[in-house]
């Protein structure tokens, strides 16, 4: 379970306090208890000494009196009188004289001569007494007669030799016990057990004295007795007499209750003090806990505020504790730093780190805001491209390039200051949002831009003159959304770049074309993945042999949305978007597979494949060789067609590749001959076997005299330099006949066959008959 810090601190302190309080009270109680017991014990020990002294004192008194008595001549006279009555009366008289309770006369043999007491001592005991008195000078002690305890003195009666023994005794009774109590301040119990089941019991404690059972009991110990009566006493036993005839003990008792009562006010005081301390501690523990935790709670609140982006709340570091003050201080610093860092991040998010102007995101935001706040105003979005900026980087290095961009941005800002927005979109491309400018007022602005932006800039002691290209779009005329407007300005800019214009204003429909191209690129990728392209084959007729022994593989793509897409369009896109290798790979794989299949069928058909400029790279021949091996084909099963422009794109590498292809054994054909450079010098250098005259010369061959002249001379030229010639676009029998007549080696066109699928071609081939040439 999670507990709040405040409660934890409070509970911790409280438990500490409770434990210490209990310990304190406990130790005080223990100490007082011990003290009570020690005091009681000391009191008992002192009491015991006093008790014994008193007992002896009493015995001495008795002894003195008895000594005087037995020495009295009259007493001797009386007890030797032989007259029992006289003896008895003498004993009574003398007993009274010395205030004794018992007096008896005993012969030397231990027989009782006389005793006024109703009960008498055990004769056996007397004999033991006599025997024990080795000195014959007398004895003293304590004995039990029936249920009474006596302190006695036994002295010889000498006349002058010992004639008899006199025993004089005083009773140890309650009166004596009370005297003892008065002097010792202890409760005294005398208890005697005789061997004839006789018991004597004397107690100063009334409740016990009254307990008949206790008094008559032979076995109950004093401790049990006291506890039976719920008396809290500390007891000290004093043995008074012990013999085979009886056992006599005294018990000195001090009440612990009274002693405890002495400490009662102290205990009450301690408990009260502990209670007050505890209550004060509880209050201060909670107060302290709150004091510690309240700034933390406050900090937590502010933290929550900070997390939601509110940095305004500053914590006052005025707390009493150093730690909390420091924490608050650091917290404020942290808050400030987070705020400044966030500001920086925001700046970075919306600004170009190099030039400090807004970035694309911010521009779009500003434009959106501007449109939504005042939808009625007119805005021109001008994209400005620093032409050939890459050359600056390449020539002078990035430092200069960066410095140029910064300087350029400064110029732009100074021009558009406060009224318009400036942003940098990528390396050398900026955009300006011009408020209240439409297609009528734009020209002036464009001129201004050209003037100020193409003025040479001083950068690191260099003076650099820029050429700028601009693309422009307008709100609301050409779009309602920021992204759209920006894109359209980009399309316009690209158009200007492509057509080497200084600026171009977006035209309606450009965007749609642009979007279609994007769709096509994505579609082409998907089609390649899904094998959704087709290869159609168009037959070529060998004019000499009058047979179809070659086809041209033509890529055919039916887009689900745009329908049939011309190879020119999508191949250009593929070339621009780096899809060419995948596309070539796909085409070659399919063509080689088909060639392999036809070869096995014995059709005797060579397949011509068009290569792009992008195919003419150094590792291309090796790939083709591997494909040949893979499909068990010979180089003459495949023919390669290359446009002249493809070669001219990078003639050195291309020609090298062509040589290698030639070396492998492929036949090479120059496609679309007559539309491009048609450079004979290049043609001379290329290891080609065939010229393919572009269909634009062939389609109207039957009617156009010029075409007839060009085609005829080209065929002658080709033949003269050892090349065979193919004509494509043969659509009429007349054209067919003319070309055949002029010696054109191969003929291709709708007259013979449209491009058809491989299976259709197989069917078509079985039934096809080459037309007869007209004269």
């Amino acid at each position, binding site marked *: 379970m999670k507990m709040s810090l405040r409660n934890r601190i409070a509970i911790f302190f409280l438990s500490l306090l409770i434990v210490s309080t209990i310990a304190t009270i406990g130790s005080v109680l223990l100490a007082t208890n011990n003290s009570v017991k020690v005091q009681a014990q000391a009191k008992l020990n002192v009491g015991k000494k006093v008790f014994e002294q008193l007992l002896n004192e009493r015995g001495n008194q008795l*002894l003195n009196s008895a000594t005087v008595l037995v*020495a009295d001549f009259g007493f001797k006279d009386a007890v030797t009188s032989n007259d029992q009555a006289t003896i008895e009366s003498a004993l009574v008289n003398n007993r009274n004289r010395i205030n004794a309770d018992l007096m008896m006369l005993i012969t030397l043999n231990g027989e009782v001569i006389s005793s006024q007491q109703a009960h008498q001592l055990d004769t056996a005991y007397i004999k033991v007494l006599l025997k024990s008195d080795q000195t014959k000078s007398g004895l*003293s002690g304590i004995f039990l007669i029936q249920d009474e305890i006596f302190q006695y003195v036994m002295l010889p009666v000498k006349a*002058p030799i010992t*004639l008899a023994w006199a025993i004089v005794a005083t009773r140890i009774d309650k009166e004596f016990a009370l005297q003892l109590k008065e002097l010792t301040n202890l409760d005294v119990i005398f208890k005697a057990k005789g061997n004839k089941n006789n018991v004597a019991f004397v107690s100063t404690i009334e409740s016990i004295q009254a307990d008949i059972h206790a008094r008559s009991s032979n076995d109950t110990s004093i401790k049990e007795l006291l506890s039976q009566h719920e008396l809290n006493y500390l007891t000290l036993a004093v043995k008074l*007499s012990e013999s085979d005839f009886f056992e006599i003990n005294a018990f000195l008792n001090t009440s612990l209750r009274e002693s405890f009562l002495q400490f009662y006010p102290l205990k009450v005081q301690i408990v009260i003090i502990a209670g007050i301390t505890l209550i004060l501690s509880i209050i201060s523990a909670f107060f302290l806990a709150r004091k510690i935790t309240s700034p933390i709670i406050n900090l937590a609140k502010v933290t929550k505020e900070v997390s939601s982006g509110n940095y305004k709340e500053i914590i006052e570091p005025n707390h009493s504790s150093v730690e909390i003050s420091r924490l608050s201080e650091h917290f404020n610093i942290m808050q400030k730093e987070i705020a400044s860092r966030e500001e920086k991040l925001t700046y970075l998010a919306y600004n170009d780190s190099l030039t400090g102007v807004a970035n694309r995101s911010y521009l779009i935001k500003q434009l959106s805001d501007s449109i939504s706040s005042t939808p009625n105003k007119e805005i021109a979005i001008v994209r400005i491209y620093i032409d050939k900026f890459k050359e600056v980087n390449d020539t002078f290095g990035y430092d200069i390039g960066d410095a140029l961009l910064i300087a350029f941005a400064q110029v732009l800002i100074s021009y558009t200051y406060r009224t318009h927005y400036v942003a940098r979109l990528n390396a050398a491309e900026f955009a300006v949002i011009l408020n209240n400018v439409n297609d009528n007022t734009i020209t002036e602005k464009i001129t201004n831009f050209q003037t100020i932006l193409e003025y040479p800039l001083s950068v690191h002691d260099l003076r650099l003159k820029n050429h700028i290209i601009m693309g422009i779009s307008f709100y609301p005329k050409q779009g309602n959304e920021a992204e759209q407007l920006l894109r359209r300005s980009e399309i316009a800019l690209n158009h200007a770049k492509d057509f080497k214009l200084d600026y171009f204003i977006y035209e309606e429909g450009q965007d749609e074309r642009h979007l279609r191209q994007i769709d096509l690129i994505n579609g082409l990728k998907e089609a390649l993945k899904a094998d959704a392209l087709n290869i159609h084959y168009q037959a070529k007729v060998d004019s000499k042999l009058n047979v179809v022994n070659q086809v041209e593989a033509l890529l055919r793509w039916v887009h689900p949305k745009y329908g049939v897409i011309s190879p020119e369009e999508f191949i250009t896109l593929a070339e621009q978007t780096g899809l060419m290798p995948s596309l070539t790979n796909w085409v070659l794989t399919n063509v080689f597979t088909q060639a392999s299949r036809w070869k096995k069928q014995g059709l005797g058909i060579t397949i011509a494949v068009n290569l792009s400029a992008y195919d003419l790279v150094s590792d291309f021949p090796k790939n083709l060789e591997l494909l040949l091996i893979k499909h068990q084909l010979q180089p003459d099963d495949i023919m390669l067609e290359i446009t002249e422009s493809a070669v001219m794109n990078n003639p050195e590498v291309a020609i090298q590749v062509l040589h290698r292809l030639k070396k492998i054994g492929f036949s090479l054909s120059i496609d679309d001959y007559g539309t491009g450079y048609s450079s004979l010098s290049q043609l001379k250098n290329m290891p080609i076997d065939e010229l393919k005259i572009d269909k634009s010369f062939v389609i109207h061959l039957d009617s156009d005299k010029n075409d007839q002249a060009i085609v005829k001379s080209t065929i002658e030229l080709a033949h003269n330099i050892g090349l065979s010639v193919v004509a494509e676009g043969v659509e009429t029998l007349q054209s067919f006949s003319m070309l055949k007549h002029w010696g054109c080696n191969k003929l291709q066109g709708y007259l013979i066959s449209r491009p058809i699928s491989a299976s259709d071609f197989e069917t078509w081939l079985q039934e096809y008959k080459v037309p007869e040439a007209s004269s």
Partner: protein
Amino acid sequence: MFWKQLLPQFCAFVGVSIAPLTSADRYQIQFVDDENKPVEFAVIAHPNAPVTEALLPAEPAVIDQIDMQFSPMVIAIEQGRTVSFPNSDNIRHHVYSFSKAKRFETKLYANKPDAPILFDQAGVVVLGCNIHDTMIGYIYVSPWRDFAVSDQNGIAEIQAAEAPQSLEYWHPWSLLPNQIITHNIQDWPETGPLILKLMLNKPEPQPELKTFKRRYLK
């Protein structure tokens, strides 16, 4: 040592043996204790012929009091004879007796009491002084004519016509005090005295019980 002590006795025996012609022979008895040491103050009597009036000496017997002691400590007298208790000390004495044979007291006196005391009952009379507990004396009142008290050598001598068949004797320190023992004699010894062994309990001076003291007896 023993023989040295017996030397005079031996001489006496020689004396006896040279006087056999008299009508009455003298018979000697020697009292010894359990260590065979001679015992003084033993009284012996021959229960043969009772005391007769004619035989009673006219003058009283004497027990003096010298240095707070009865002197001699023991005398033997004929039944019916008087005893005088002169006081030789320069302090007074109070002589008394609680014995059955004679109860008497002479109140404090110096020099000489008024009159001698008559002892007309046979038995042992123990004498004491009421103010000096240490003074103890004994008078053996004999009903018989022939008796004697042993001297320092333990020798007591009686005269008899023929060897006594029984004798009575007594000693103040005997284990059974005040008891007169009758002793039957089978054979007198051919020579020397008849030796009688006494079991005595010589009273030592006893400390008085001065303080009360509890006792534990088993």
